[in-house]
């Protein structure tokens, strides 16, 4: 593993392009999994490729202060997803169709999994109610595991805007859950 930070690797890759491969090795899986959740396996593989191709071509213009390239890469992925909204819509519908099916084979807490399965349909509807920006912010937080500051980098938004959009998105989802499936509303403060 190269001890250099992503930023150093990317800067170095301007003159030594092969260094960029290490950036993929570090973040390819996270990007793929994030995209896979949003658009499915096939499209995810496609978009992951495009993310890194674009990132490589734009590497000389990277101006993030972050040492990690993940927010930047997830930002590219999210932008590309907007071109794939139809695929994502189909994916969302596919989830909805599968909402009544529950795979209990994972061996984790069955009550949790039943709750999760029951929540799918309601959550999907809730996600569809969000604006594109709210959905991006929420999913970058939930699935991309980015902090609000990192989401701000990813989406080129102000951190304050991200926090308020995240707050609104979670509140909207929680409110939809409360109306449609009150037993699924998490015990703790959903907005926190």
């Amino acid at each position, binding site marked *: 593993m190269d001890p250099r930070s992503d930023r150093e690797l990317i800067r170095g890759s301007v003159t030594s*392009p*092969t260094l*960029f*491969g290490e950036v*993929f*090795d570090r973040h*390819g*899986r996270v990007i*793929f*999994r994030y995209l*896979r*959740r949003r658009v499915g*396996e*096939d499209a*995810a*593989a*496609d978009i*992951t*490729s495009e993310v*890194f*191709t674009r990132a*490589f*071509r734009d590497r000389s213009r990277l101006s993030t202060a972050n040492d990690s390239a993940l927010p930047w890469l997830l930002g590219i992925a999210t932008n590309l997803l907007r*071109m794939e909204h139809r695929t994502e819509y189909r994916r969302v519908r596919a*989830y909805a169709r599968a909402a009544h099916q529950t*795979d209990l084979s*994972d061996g984790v807490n069955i009550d*949790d*999994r039943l709750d*999760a*399965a029951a*929540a*799918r349909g309601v*959550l*999907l509807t809730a996600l569809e109610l969000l604006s594109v920006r709210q959905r991006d912010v*929420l*999913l970058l*937080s*939930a*699935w991309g595991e980015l902090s609000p500051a990192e989401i701000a980098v990813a989406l080129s938004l102000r951190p304050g805007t991200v926090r308020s959009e995240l707050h609104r998105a*979670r509140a909207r*989802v*929680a409110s939809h*859950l409360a109306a449609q499936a009150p037993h*699924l509303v*998490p*015990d*703790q*403060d*959903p*907005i*926190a």
Partner: protein
Amino acid sequence: MNSIDDLLRRSLTAPVRDAVEASSLARTRAALDLVIGTEPAPIRRRVWRRKLQVGVGLLPAAAVGLLVVVISVGAVLFIHGRPRTRSAISDPPTATALIGRLSVLARPQTGADRLPDRVTNHWAQLTHETQAGRLFPRLTRLVLSQGKVKLYLAVVAPSTDPYSPWTPEDGDQVTVIEVGPTGTSATQAIPAKALSDADIVSLIAPPGPFREAVGTGTAFALSIVPDSVARTSWFYSAKGYDTRINVPVHNNLAITGAGSRYPTGKVDATWYTDSGKPIRTNNSLIEEAQAASQRRRYRQDLQIAKAQKHSAAAEILKAFAVFSFDRPAGTRLPDGLIISKPPLDQLPLGVLSFAEATPGRRFALDLRDVRRVQAPSGLSMYILPGTSGLCVAQTGVFEIRDSPAQAAGAGFGCTQKLSSALLHGSGIISGTARHQTDYGIVPRAHPITTVSLKGGRSRTLRPSDGVYIERS
């Protein structure tokens, strides 16, 4: 972790399939390696294979009245062949490696197992499609007889076709040959090592469009499987539906008649033993082989392109505004198009292959002066100036119609005469039954063009800087 985030994470997910994920990541990494222009580590030597469900029907751009030669992807592949020199083969696996894994080949050959003479005698004509080498007449076995159709398993010598994913070093190969009243066809041949890849599923039908044979009892989806396999399960998407079927095995062949929902794209297959236990397979072998094959061709085409001496006609470069854009990183036009001048080593394989002379094209192209035009929609085209004309190319990795095979290539339209090029430019139309995209270039002197849209409509364009990518 916020509780709503946690609920989203737990609820809207699906089990991670390690093999699929690893395969996707390896392909993506290999695609990136190609972009970077480096030699990837051996284990990552794969090339991107897009699963574009695009029927690439390239039609002449008659509406713009151009002399356009449109050659389909398949044709590009077909004409691309050239002699390759290979290093000496050191003990490649012979037919015994196949016989050891396919017991149907080990049983004595009977008269019924022999291919009809008309097939044996005309085998060479089939090999363009099957990328198979010489037939071994004693190593053919009848594996299915249904109505007037007979299927044979046959061992062939390795192909030297540069478009074959396999190399002579992979050794002898096995193919399935269908002999019917209307002709003979065969699947793409595979070597012994590919008998560990469960995802290699082929379609076979009498010569002609596959879809016309569907439902007639002469079209099949099949997979050659080694002795330990008693049953296979296929999962694939067809006509927008996810489909899972169990396919029985007989004579080392997992085979099913092709109904209306036959697999047209990638099949995710699992092999099972007699006792129902899944068999460990390596389902990325074909992709690795295709990637390696593409890398070989890429290196060779890059060499050819670098060695070229000719230049594009000065009149062409002057007549089209697009050639005044020289920035490799690209220049964004007011309408959102980005025009760039990619260096040779950043051209995709589909464009690099234009470095070679091709039958029917009477002028050479100058790949050092290629321009790439990218639309905000993500669509892009390449403009290739030549010594007397110019070409417009749309590149990608395409699924070949009626075949599970995929290949990198380019659909292109060329205006061959200098006078026509200077007057009309060039263009292509690419599309499916539902969408059509017009790609084209018009000269500064005649900047207006009319493109025909779906449904018989037409639209007059005055594209800024002479290039357009119009989707309808």
